[in-house]
């Protein structure tokens, strides 16, 4: 705080000194940041190691057909990956998730924005959206397979329909929270409709859209695996069913683990990166956290 006030004063007085001080304002010192990041990573690794240790403890009390040893399972993971099997199956599952997700996004973003802006549309679309939210993904999966048969279309449709209400609600609520003062400001400066959407409205929705992507992907994974279990001949869901049919706990767990790893990479890697790069304008406020 003291530092900030110093910057203010220096600006009011003489501006030439200000550039250097402003650089010091947002960032912490380099070394403190690195050690903090290392501690953070250490804690995360520690948490995973603890989980594996607990797994091993429990496995001592059960036969390997019920709870296999962690390293046997990891060896199975290695086999899945080294035979190339993994990439084909995961690719199929990922494609189904992403296509379904894309379809849902294309519909929900405009619909959510319209519902947040126009009261009539809000009243009209609110009941189906809320109803859709309560419908279990499993039922959508069954309905879509009955309607489209065992085709890729049924997988895409099941994913899209399941996550669509959640995405729409998130963007609808985000639109309602938009700052009217900024809209007035853009009107005063004669901003074009396009500029209003791109420069004023969408940036305010970004954090809502990112949260929606997070929840949406989580839901999408669950549905797509169910659809694949119903009788697809490829995809992670199919492989899990295959493991179940030969009663190999090891196979089921190995596929579950690889699946988790991919999800974590997407969640922390891709979405995390996206979030950091679109919210660079916002100072990190962590003073109240310990």
């Amino acid at each position: 705080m003291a530092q900030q006030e110093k910057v203010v004063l220096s600006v009011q007085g003489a501006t030439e000194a200000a550039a250097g001080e402003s650089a010091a304002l947002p960032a912490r010192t380099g070394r403190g940041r690195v050690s903090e990041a290392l501690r953070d990573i250490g804690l995360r690794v520690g948490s995973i190691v603890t989980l594996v240790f607990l797994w091993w403890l429990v496995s001592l009390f059960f036969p390997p057909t019920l709870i296999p040893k962690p390293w046997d399972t990891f060896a199975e993971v290695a086999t899945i990956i080294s035979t190339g099997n993994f990439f084909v199956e995961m690719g199929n599952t990922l494609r189904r998730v992403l296509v379904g997700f894309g379809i849902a996004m294309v519909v929900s973003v405009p619909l959510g924005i319209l519902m947040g802006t126009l009261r009539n549309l809000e009243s009209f679309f609110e009941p189906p959206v809320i109803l859709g939210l309560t419908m279990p993904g499993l039922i959508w999966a069954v309905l879509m397979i009955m309607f489209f048969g065992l085709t890729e279309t049924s997988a895409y449709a099941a994913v899209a329909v399941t996550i669509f209400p959640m995405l729409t609600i998130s963007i609808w609520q985000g639109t309602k929270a938009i700052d009217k003062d900024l809209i007035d400001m853009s009107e005063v400066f004669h901003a074009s409709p396009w500029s209003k959407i791109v420069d004023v409205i969408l940036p305010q929705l970004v954090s809502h859209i990112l949260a929606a992507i997070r929840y949406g992907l989580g839901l999408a994974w669950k549905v797509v695996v169910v659809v694949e279990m119903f009788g697809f001949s490829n995809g992670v869901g199919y492989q899990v069913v295959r493991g179940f049919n030969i009663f190999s706990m090891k196979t089921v767990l190995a596929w579950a683990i690889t699946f988790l790893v991919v999800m974590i990479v997407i969640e922390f890697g891709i979405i995390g990166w996206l979030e950091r790069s679109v919210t660079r304008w916002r100072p990190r406020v962590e003073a109240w956290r310990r």
Partner: protein
Amino acid sequence: MAYVQVEQAVKSFLREDGTTMLVLDGVSFDTKEHGITCLLGPSGCGKSTLLNVIAKLERLDRGRVEVVSNHGELGEKPPRLGYVFQDPRLLPWKRVEDNLTFALKGMKVPQIEWRERIHKYLGFVGLHEFRKQYPLYLSGGMRQRVGLARALVIEPEVLLMDEPYSKLDQLTARKLREDSLAICARLKQTALLVTHDVEEAAYMGDRIVIFSARPAHIVEVLDNPFPPLERDFDDVRFIQLKKRLLQTVLNLIKEKEEV
């Protein structure tokens, strides 16, 4: 340049409970050309509403508000108006210079002029070094300066300011007032400043228009005898001017309470 003509402006709002609230009750005045006109009056009297009418954010029920330009070249084109808000209303996801670009783009200023204009007006408010910074990394006073630069960069016929200093601490506000006054004098800018602060009106206003409490009518219009850069807080005559304004406004508030 230009000035603003307000004639018999009447405006009422619909309350939540269905009754109407009269805000402006036949307000008429002309602003100064090449100078700052202060709209002074008690809080909630409708000064800001009038500013919003001029900026076309609100519409009058009756009466007329016109930006008159001597050039005549305006023709059918709407006048360029710069607006400085109470909260600066910057786009926090845009860097300082891009906030200015947003206004330039909206007002359809040719792109080749952007760089030079941004340089010039950020320089005026003393923030050229901060052009690449995001607003949330700046102090409140600096953000308000960006808001001023954004309003000036479109080279408006009329600059509208809605209590731009009221949320700043005393020292920052004082410095910013001084700078704004100097900038407006240098640009010969026609400006309207809404305020409820008597001292601010006496210091900033070349013309001071005193509004009554709601529903607002004009109580008095007086021209500041001191030129912009010769207003000295310790000068006896300046103190007298301030006293007179204060007395008028205090009487208005008292009348209102007696009713």
